[in-house]
C-alpha cells in the first residue's frame, strides 16, 4: 500500500498518546498497547519508535540509529526509517508535532 502520509527529515514525532509503548517480558519484545489491541514490535521497529519522543528530528534520530546499529550506509538507513515512520503514521501509532 502506498503511504498516504509523507515523513520529512526535519519533522519531529511522538507516539500517539492513545498507544502505550513498553517492554513486555512475556513476548521478549517491545509492544504497543491500545484499546483492545496489541502490536508486537521487532527490535528495529522498537529502536525507531524509542526516538519518537518529540525531541529529535527524524534526521537526528537517523544519526542515533546509525551509531546504535553500527551501520555505515546512512542513506539506506534514512530511507528505511522514513518508510517505517510513514507506515506508523498511516496506522496512527505516531503523530507529528509542530
Amino acid at each position, binding site marked *: *500500500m502506498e503511504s498516504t502520509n509523507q515523513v520529512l527529515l526535519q519533522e519531529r514525532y511522538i507516539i500517539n*498518546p*492513545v498507544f*502505550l509503548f513498553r517492554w*513486555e517480558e*512475556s*513476548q521478549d519484545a517491545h*509492544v504497543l*498497547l*491500545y*484499546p*483492545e*489491541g*496489541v*502490536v*508486537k*514490535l*521487532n*527490535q*528495529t*521497529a522498537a529502536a*525507531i519508535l524509542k526516538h519518537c519522543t518529540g525531541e529529535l528530528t527524524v534526521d537526528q534520530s537517523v544519526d542515533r540509529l546509525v551509531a546504535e*546499529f553500527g*551501520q555505515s550506509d546512512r542513506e*539506506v*538507513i534514512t*530511507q*528505511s*526509517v522514513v*518508510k*517505517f515512520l*510513514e*507506515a*506508523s503514521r*498511516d*496506522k*496512527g501509532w505516531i503523530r507529528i508535532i509542530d
Partner: protein
Amino acid sequence: MTKAGSELSIDGDGKPIWVSLELTYQCPLSCVFCSNPLDFESYQKGEMSAAEWKRVIREARDMGAMQIGFTGGEPTLRKDLEELVGYANEIGFYTNLITSGIGLTATRLKVLKAAGLKHIQLGFQSCDENVANTLAGVDSAKLNSYRKKLAIAQEIKALGFPMVLNIPVTRQNLPQVPEILQLAEQLGVEYVELANVQYYNWALVNRDQLMPSREELEWAEAEVNRFRERVGDKMTIYFVIPDYFDGRPKACMNGWGSIHLTIAPDGSALPCSQARSLETLTFPSVRDHSLQWLWEESATFKVYRGNEWMKEPCRSCDEKEQDFGGCRCQALALTGDADNTDPACSKSPHHHIVQQAIKSAELARELKQPLLVREANSVVAIKRASKMSAANRVASEEAECVNNTGSTCRKESSCKSRVLSDGEAVE
C-alpha cells in the same frame, strides 16, 4: 533494513493475550440485543469476591496476558471495580472498561483514572433519543439512558480517556449512522465500532425485529466510507458487513483457546463469552482450578483448539487459517452440532439456514412484532413465545428439509476480531 508493510501477526504463542472479566450479569439497562444469558439473574448469588478476582488477574498476567477487559453485565455495579482496575494496572495490564456508562459519575471516573484505567468502551445505541431508549429497553420517564450516556461520554473525554463508542447496528438505529458518526466526532471519540449484532441470547430472541437488510447495510457502508474520507485518520471506524451476509464466518475469538479467555461472574472459565451455550461441554471454575490448568489442560479449552476437530468442508479448505471454521456457538445454535462448519459460510451444507433467517427477518417487517426487552425470569415465557415467531416457523420447515437429505438438523459475545493487530516486520 526496513521492510515496512510486511505483516507479522502475533498469535500469543499459545498464551492467552486477552482476558475478559464478566464481573456481574446484573445491569440497570435491558437492551433488546443483549448477548448476556437469558437467565442472567441466576448468577447473582454466586458472584466472585474481589480476592477471587485478584487471584485470576494475577494468574492471567503470569501467563503473559497483556489486555484485560472489565465487562458484564454492568461492571460499574461492582463497588470493588476501582480496586480491581488498580490491581490489574499495577501488575502491568492494559486495562479496558466496557460499560453502558450508567453507574459512572465524574467522581468515579477520576478514581478510575487515578487507578490506572487506560481505556473506556461505552455502549451506545443512537443519537435519536427515542430509538436509543427503545433499544436500551428503558422507559425514559424512569431512566433516560440516552441523556445519561451522552453526559458521561463528555466526562470521559474531559478526563482524556481514549474512548471506543460501541454501537450494535440494528434495523432501528441503522438510518442514523451518519448522525451517530457526527456525534462521535463532536465528542472527540477515537474509535467507533459499528458492531454487528451477534445473534445470541436476547439478540437471537429479537433477531427477526433487529436484523437489517443487505441493502440497508450497504447504504450504511457507503455512508461510513464517505465519513472516513472526510475525517481522515483522527477517528477509526470499525464496520464490516455481518457474517450472515458475507458468505464467510467471523474469525471467532481468533480461534478457540488461542488468545482469548473469559471468566463469567461465577468463575467459570470460557473460551468465549457465549461458550456456555455448548451444553455438551463443562466449564470448570477458577474457584477449583488454576488458570494455567484451565487453559492448558482442561478438555473444554482443548476441544476446538487448532484444526484437528474440523469436519468437511473446513478440513480441506485453504481458508481455515483465516476464519478457524467460524463460530462454534453459531454452528450449534443454527445447525444443532457445534462441530459443524459455521453456517454463515457459503460452503457450509447448512448455509440455507442463514439465508432463511434473512428471509424470515424480511417477512417479520410486515408482522411488526414487539421487541422483547431483557428481563429477569423470562426464559420460560420466551420459549413459549418463540414457538410462534416467524423465525421458528421458517426454521422448522428447514429442519425437515435438512432431515430429508439424511443429515440431522436441530436447531449465538461479540467477537474480538480486533484484539490483535498486525505488527510491522522490520528486518
